[in-house]
């Protein structure tokens, strides 16, 4: 058909499908002797909602700042919307909306005045559209009523919303939100999720960082897990969540009787330290429970085994907490 279909598959396959909104290779950043980010190969597929998941201090913000050309990497390369960064900043950043390290505004100006100032600096903003774009963005984050109050008097949640409004001033190709739900109440968190879903629906690529797995699970199509400055896992959320065969952990005092009953019914099971490990192959959880109850075994607790991602993230964060 067209000449584009004549690209050799060997060369074209890796490049063409799927296109990447952002891509880093061997990214490294050190501050003195501290390694903030090391060997990060991050792929943000076009149109995806990619969640960067990691405990505090895992290098999420530093990676984002290098993606946006705010920080010069010590080593490695960054590509944003197909252009190398930070050299391509003037081409790419007008198409990128970002909220990094919390919202930054002037306390003595109103929310509206603050947004006007942001809008004036936006290269793709038509001067005649500033007033209406600002009003629209304020409306979208539910700040219209407080628009003419000074930023100084805003609550933490309102500040965060104003930051989100500054990202929404223009239609973007990529939106980067660094810990957007910090300081928000549940209603605010739901609104952020709604905005992310809206952006996704209009084809905007979204990169959102969080230290909460639940947050990522609720909003993202893709996930990259960072730990101590490195990417330890990345891929589609569904894939990562389902990694590892499904299984049940059964807590029971009657281990032997239970094992016999399960094996009689053709269910693979083995004993563990505090009960049974039952693989859910060719069977379902209710079936397993019925077999156990019918065999007269006492069951304290039955729970699903944690999936690969949950397990991984729990290990990372639990290690952090101790």
């Amino acid at each position, binding site marked *: 058909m067209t000449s584009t279909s004549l690209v050799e598959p060997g060369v074209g396959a890796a490049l063409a499908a799927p296109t990447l909104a952002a891509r880093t290779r061997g990214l490294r950043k050190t501050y003195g002797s501290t390694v903030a980010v090391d060997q990060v190969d991050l792929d943000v597929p076009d149109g995806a909602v990619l969640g960067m998941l990691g405990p505090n201090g895992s290098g999420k913000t530093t990676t984002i700042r290098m993606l946006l050309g705010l920080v010069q990497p010590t080593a490695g390369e960054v590509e944003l919307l197909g252009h190398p960064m930070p050299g391509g900043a003037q081409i790419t950043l007008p198409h990128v909306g970002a909220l990094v390290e919390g919202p*930054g505004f002037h306390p003595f100006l109103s929310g509206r005045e603050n947004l006007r100032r942001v809008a004036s600096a936006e290269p793709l903003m038509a001067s005649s559209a500033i007033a209406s774009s600002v009003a629209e963005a304020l409306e979208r984050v539910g700040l219209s009523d407080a628009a003419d109050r000074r930023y100084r008097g805003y609550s933490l949640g309102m500040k965060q919303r104003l930051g989100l409004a500054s990202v929404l001033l223009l239609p973007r*190709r990529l939106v980067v939100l660094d810990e957007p739900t910090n300081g928000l109440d549940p209603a605010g968190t739901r609104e952020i999720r709604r905005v992310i879903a809206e952006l996704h629906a209009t084809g905007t690529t979204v990169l959102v960082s969080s230290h909460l797995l639940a947050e990522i699970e609720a909003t993202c199509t893709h996930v990259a897990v960072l730990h101590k400055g490195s990417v330890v896992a990345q891929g589609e959320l569904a894939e990562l969540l389902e990694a590892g065969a499904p299984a049940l952990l059964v807590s029971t005092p009657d281990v032997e009787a239970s094992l016999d009953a399960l094996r009689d019914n053709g269910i693979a099971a083995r004993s563990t330290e505090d009960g049974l490990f039952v693989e859910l192959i060719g069977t379902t959880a209710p079936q397993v429970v019925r077999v156990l109850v019918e065999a007269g075994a006492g069951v304290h607790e039955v729970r699903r085994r944690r999936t690969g991602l949950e397990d991984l993230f729990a290990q990372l964060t639990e290690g952090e907490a101790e």
Partner: protein
Amino acid sequence: MTAAVVDSVERPALDRPVRAPLGRLLASELRWVLRRPRTVIAIVLVACVPVLIGVGTRIASNAGVGPGGGGLFASLIGNGFVLPILSLTLLLTMLLPLLGAMAAADALAGESAHGTLRGLLMAPVSRARLLGVKAFGVGATVFIAVVAIAVVGLATGVVLVGTDGLITLSGNTLSFGDALARIGLAVVWVTFQVWAVAAIALAVSAFTEHPLVVMAATLAGALVFGILTVIPQLDWLQPYLLTSTWTTITDVLRDPMPWDGLVNSTLKAACYLVIGLGAAYARLSNKDG
């Protein structure tokens, strides 16, 4: 991926650098500077100084305790157009540099502290443009303050003394138009000197995110320069100090006017300006956002 797009928004092409109009950036900066309460308060306060000097000297002379001898204060009595010049001379020694430093501190360090500098860099505004816009904002603040002092000084002088008797330090009388031209010249000269101070302050401002550091550094610099100026053994150094020629401004009150001092001190200020802006750019161009 694109198959999932429900309602795609039309997006501008992604193939060339785009920049916000420079005029819009400058207007936005000016608006921001003039909406900052402390800028307005500082300008109003320095503009009150000529009234204070004018009324104060008038009361003192009426009471018969006016300054004896020569000098500017003496020529103030019965001479309206000396007041703006005298006010600028006095304010140039400390308050105007302080005002310039304050504006410069807010321009980069202050924005950095509020996290708003990052927003500008991400818009993006290129770093060279950012410095240009910031220098414009600081320069405009200083210029407005100097003009305000001159206008208030002139008005106070005219109210207290009237428009006749515009006598120079050399003894002859100037027309009102000539006097205005001299005041205009003083405004330009003083503005440029304060710009030189502000440029250095802007460089400090690029290095820190604490506005207080900028203020302290500028004040300390002004004090050290003042001390160096009075040490006789350092007379070889003194021609290079910005502050050492700040008294040259009284030349505009002489007739005919000696230009040498005014031109030399302006060239010296230009050197400080270039050094300050150069250092600010060097820092800004590799500063982490």
